[in-house]
């Protein structure tokens, strides 16, 4: 870990994207997490995902709660506004922010303590409200900052470094999200960039509530051979739906895929997700099937990953609220104030 300032030097040959930005333009401050922390791989994946898809950094708002996971937004997209809010309450802050300006990308970063324990209520309700955002849970099954207590996502029987065994059934954030109406649900692993990056890109592009549960091992407190959230267990019991590619809308013309070799999902803006191998035969539009798939693997001690569920036909929160196209924070005085004449009419109704 380090608290020194990040050097501004960058290699002159660094590649630029369509906006003329290099990868460095998507980075944040130096991490203060432990060396080898899964969360740093998530930051790196977000940086690469955003750079590749030429996301305008300043059109992204990053919002988090409290905990190791919630520090992540400092470590990517320093040109974006960030909000490190209150433990377990990121969903409400993200909801309000999204209400104020529907025309930005919202990335919510949370952890298993933040979203599955103290903030489980808010998590459930943000899913129900279908806020248009990408919500990532960096899931390590433990409380790092308070030195290694078990969290509510720790599997029954999983053991921490201190030897504490989880006596209770875990909360599965992915099945919960599917049950509650999330329209994009994926699970991934911080160690599998190949899978995580296209999932982040697809989640950012998806219109509606996109959720990715990322197994992200805590190297300090929960990376033992008996922990189901450690690197060893995750690698050994990792079941992927196979290779996934995300092709942004404007790139479609230059990339070609052999017909019948994969499954294509076209997102609302014309971007395409290509699912290969196992994913080709998996139907991610079937809710019950997705839950069954996750539970079946869980029974075998396996972690089902990939794009588990997607539904592109639901309305997002602004559509449900029927809000104007202009963002609320751009409405002028004249848009908002009805004026004295209307007020005098209202006075008459109280006579």
């Amino acid at each position, binding site marked *: 870990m380090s608290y020194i300032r990040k050097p501004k030097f960058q290699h002159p040959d660094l590649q630029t994207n369509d906006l003329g930005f290099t990868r460095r333009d998507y980075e944040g401050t130096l991490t203060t997490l432990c060396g080898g922390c899964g969360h740093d791989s998530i930051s790196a994946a977000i940086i690469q995902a955003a750079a590749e898809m030429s996301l305008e950094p300043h059109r992204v708002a990053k919002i988090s709660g409290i905990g190791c996971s919630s520090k992540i937004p400092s470590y990517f997209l320093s040109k974006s506004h960030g909000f490190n809010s209150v433990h377990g309450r990121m969903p409400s802050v993200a909801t309000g922010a999204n*209400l104020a300006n529907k025309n930005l990308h919202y990335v919510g970063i949370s952890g298993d303590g933040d979203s599955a324990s103290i903030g489980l209520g808010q998590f459930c309700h943000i899913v129900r409200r279908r806020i248009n955002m990408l919500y990532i849970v960096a899931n390590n099954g433990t409380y790092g900052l308070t030195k290694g207590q078990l969290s509510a996502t720790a599997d029954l029987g999983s053991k921490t470094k201190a030897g504490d065994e989880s006596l209770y059934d875990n909360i599965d954030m992915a099945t919960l999200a599917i049950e509650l109406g999330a329209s994009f649900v994926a699970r991934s692993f911080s160690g599998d960039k190949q899978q995580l990056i296209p999932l982040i890109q697809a989640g950012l592009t998806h219109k509606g509530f996109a959720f990715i549960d990322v197994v992200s091992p805590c190297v300090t407190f929960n990376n033992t051979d008996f922990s189901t959230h450690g690197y060893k267990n995750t690698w050994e019991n990792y079941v992927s739906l196979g290779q996934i590619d995300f092709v942004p809308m404007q790139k479609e013309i230059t990339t070609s895929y052999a017909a019948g070799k994969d499954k294509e999902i076209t997102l609302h803006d014309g971007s395409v997700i290509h699912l290969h191998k196992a994913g080709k035969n998996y139907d991610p539009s079937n809710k019950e099937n997705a839950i069954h798939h996750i539970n079946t693997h869980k029974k075998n001690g396996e972690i089902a990953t990939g794009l588990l569920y997607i539904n592109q036909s639901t309305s997002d929160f602004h559509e449900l609220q029927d809000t104007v196209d202009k963002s609320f924070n751009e409405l002028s005085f004249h848009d908002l104030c009805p004026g*004295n004449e209307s007020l005098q009419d209202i006075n008459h109704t109280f006579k």
Partner: protein
Amino acid sequence: MPELVTTTKVNTLPKTNDFVIKFANVNGSGSASSNNMFAKAIFRMGIPVSPHNIFPSNIQGLPTWYEVRVSDNNYLGRREGVDLMVAMNEQTIESDINSVVSGGFALYDSSKPLSDKLIRSDIHYLPIPLKDICLAEFEKPSQRQLFKNIVYVGALAALINIDFKVLTDMVSDQFRGKEKLILPNIHALELGHQYASENFKCPLPLELEKRNLTLDKILMDGNTAIGLGCVYGGATVASWYPLTPSTSVVDAFDKYCKRLRRDPGSGKNKFSVVQAEDELAAIGMAIGAGWNGARAFTASSGPGVSLMQEFLGLAYFSEVPVVLFNIQRVGPSTGMPTRTQQGDLLTCAYASHGDTKQILLFPSTPKECFEFAADSFDIADRLQTPVIVLSDLELGMNEQICDHLDWDDQRRYDRGKVLNEEQLSEIENYGRYQDVDGDGIPYRTYPGTHANKGSYFTRGSSHDVNAAYTENGDTYAEIMDRISLKFKTALDYIPKPEISSSSTHKRGLIYLGTTTSAIQETLDKLQKKGISLDTMRLKAFPFHDCVREFINDHELVYVIEQNRDAQLKSLLKIECNANEEQMLSILSYNGVLITAQQIEHTILDSLSPSERTEEESA
């Protein structure tokens, strides 16, 4: 023909436009609308009137009262003692009849005989067979029940001389679009009127006389006024969790937004009302929206405000504007959810852990509710901090006479120090928490403003002037000191107290909010006894210097408030370094509005006989 039961020859002094009528009903029996009609009719006759709902936390069955004071002197507070009781609730009839003043009247449903123990020799009875009348006249069971309430209003019209046309016009107004309901309602009014006229000597010595004292006035409740004020103040996001007595704030906002805030072209909404899962989420959403540049608020009461504490600290420390309307009710805990109190002063003034301070506004009339609601968004934006508007159940949920609402069309919103893209381009080094102007207020930016300037990381953890995380104690202290300075600047933006003083008066009154309704009456009563007092009505916290000066300028100030622990007095001690010996508390915390009699008695009791003489000679 039943006689007016006068078992005694108690002399009833005639009272014109100066009496209290109380309705004792069963909750859920449909009495609210008829009782409101009664009060509004008096208002429309140009006579000052103040209705007070005393209702249970219940949907159906528990007792509820509606107390209407009529006063030519414009005394709109409560007055103890009932001149005419409309005793419609068998559960409470004994205590209701006992609360009638000697020489007063009790109207009751004589379809069943009155028990002997309810016969008092010093009051007059007005028996009306309401149930029998309705049974004979109406077929539907629901109408038989509901119209009992209308029949007694009709009877009262004859008994105390309400202009009958005012009543029938109101019925027509109320049921516009539902014409079928107009005739039976008017018929019910006529039945009552006819019965009273034929059976009693009308009018009673309690009589209404038309005036023109309410011409420019409106009759409105504070919560409606707040909801409307939020529309005028430019709020676009209301996130809330239902909680009595704050619920009608958001109901009103929603209602007026649907009327006034829909885009004429597309019909789409320029507002959003979100019913949150709890009060934590409610204020979290408002803070998220405020951070992102929308004007946002939440409305709640004690239990909800307790839940919001952590978020209020975040908004204080990370300097995010947000508005919270706290419609206070009786605490602690669930307390008495449908009774009034000023019990959240301390918990709001320093809401959240650590060194915090919050801006408080204290409206006292519906007009001020409207104005302070609209102003609160300017203040929150200007100071980049939460503003808590402290109303209470009494003001929020009761209709009250006040001046009509006005809006200055020249006025523009003060969005405070927000940098746009162009301004950011011209700035070399932007720091979110830099005190560029020396007034303690830094410059903010909204997300998405500029491609490579002005972004920052908002956090509730300790930060430096550039919003970067720090554990450096000196840096932390500098930020905390700068926020203190901001609260000094706040005094330029929050309303000053209303002071009425004369250099000859040695004593003064300090009060705020709904206590105001009893003050003029108190002063007049004391004046008659030769006692004159200066007054100071507080409108905001933190306090201006003149508050301390007012206390220092008097030998004694009475601090009047509606809670047990003298919270306002504590605040004055803490913030103004006021001397304990110079302040005397007048407290009321039984859940109903403080009265002039209570205040007068405490003041008189505090004066020794020699002091009284001294005051009188002064």
